[in-house]
């Protein structure tokens, strides 16, 4: 892990409606290159909103997201360009059902990075092989199981060669027996040095893979530290009661 800060979050606020629901209440943190940050917390604590603010799928009410030196909340910034370097994986996979797996993986690199079809397909096939799905290249998403879909979704993001990967509860929509295969891919990715921000309910994964764990409660970072500090020596009362429920 280097000391280079990849994403800096400054005093992030997000409210939905006209000041009605305060999802985020002033979050400041930074994610360094190579770090795996797991974000845990009770439902409604703002975990997903926080993650979706990082690539501005959710527009912050106030505060700054500085990604590789550019303030993404600045209206003059070309967001599309920066999003190309932030891969995102969704709870519901969101593969494009009208395209084959190969087309899912190559359409963005070909359209946005002007890669030739051959280059894009070679890259996609290599990544598919690494997640064990090379034989499904010509299938359509509906022909795949949930776990396979999510592995493809991870590959789709990787095909753009992002600097950071954002995971929004990537295993929450999966049948239990498929959680492992997706987590394995994520572990491999972490081991390869990918910078990752992961919203998850998989405490085992957070404990094993995270370099830092953020515990969100009521739109604030209520506790933050290494997995050992968070899981083995929790000090925050809310964190203690949360862990008592999920572990």
């Amino acid at each position, binding site marked *: 892990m280097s000391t280079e800060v990849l994403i800096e979050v400054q005093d992030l606020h997000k409210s939905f409606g006209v000041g009605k629901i305060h999802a985020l209440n002033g979050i400041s943190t930074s994610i360094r290159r190579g770090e795996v940050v797991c974000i845990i917390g009770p439902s409604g604590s703002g975990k997903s909103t926080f993650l979706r603010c990082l*690539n501005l*799928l959710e527009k912050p009410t106030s505060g700054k997201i500085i990604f590789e030196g550019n303030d993404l909340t600045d209206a003059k910034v070309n967001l599309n360009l920066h*999003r190309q370097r932030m891969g995102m994986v969704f709870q519901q996979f*969101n593969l*494009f059902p009208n395209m084959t797996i190969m087309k899912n993986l190559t*359409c963005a690199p070909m359209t946005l990075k002007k890669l030739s079809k051959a280059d894009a397909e070679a890259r996609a096939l290599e990544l598919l092989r690494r997640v064990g799905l090379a034989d499904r290249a010509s299938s359509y998403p509906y022909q795949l199981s949930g776990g396979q879909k999510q592995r493809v979704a991870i590959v789709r993001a990787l095909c753009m060669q992002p600097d950071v990967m954002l995971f929004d509860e990537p295993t929450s929509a999966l049948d239990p027996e498929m959680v492992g295969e997706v987590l394995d891919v994520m572990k491999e990715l972490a081991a390869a040095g990918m910078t990752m921000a992961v919203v998850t309910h998989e405490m085992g994964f957070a404990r094993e893979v995270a370099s830092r764990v953020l515990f969100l409660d009521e739109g604030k970072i209520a506790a933050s530290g290494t997995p050992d500090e968070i899981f083995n020596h929790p000090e925050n009362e809310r964190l203690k009661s949360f862990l008592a429920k999920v572990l």
Partner: protein
Amino acid sequence: MFEKLREEFVFNFIEGARWKYIVNGLGVTLKVTFLALLLGTAIGLVVASIRSSYDQNKEDLRPGLWKTLFKLLNGLCNLYLTIIRGTPVVVQLLIGYFIVFVSSNDTVLVATLVFGINSGAYITEIIRGGIMSVDKGQFEAGRSIGFNYLQTMRLVIIPQAFKNVLPSLANEFIALLKETAVCGYIGLMDLTKGGDVIRGRTFSAFMPLIVVALIYLLLVIIFSKLVGILERRLRRSEH
């Protein structure tokens, strides 16, 4: 009885080569319908894109010239939809022929434009419904990978929306085909008018009108079959 029908048929269509009214009329009907459908689909795509992108983006747009223009454009689209959907197509046809395009004698062109503009309003709402029916996650996936708004629409949303709206679009086509029967109002010799002219010449109503009705029916049945085939092919990537 069959002998009687045969006599009627020969009298109405063969004598004086009156079948030509039917054949030529059918040609006009098909021409107006297809051209109007093309025009209507083009209008529908543009207006639906403006309407739905305005609805999706209005909160994110910064105040300024672009936002004002966008708002104005959206207002114009709404005006168009209101007027076209709020008045009978026959009245639009008459206004088109006697007021708007009064200098044109090309009735096929006038009818095509009027029916195209008319059906554009209905196709707009069909396509807009289709765009809104695509899961929001698809849009987010497209944007998060780095596509801009238009790329996301073109590569991800529209292809899925098209599949969803195909039955309604086919319905609109069938409605359009039958609606063109009123273009006799501006003196255009379409299928219906052709049959009616024969009735006027022979003073026999049954044969020409029933044949005209059967031809419309046959066209609609054939077209429905074709759409069915297309739908099955598109469903290959169904989840």
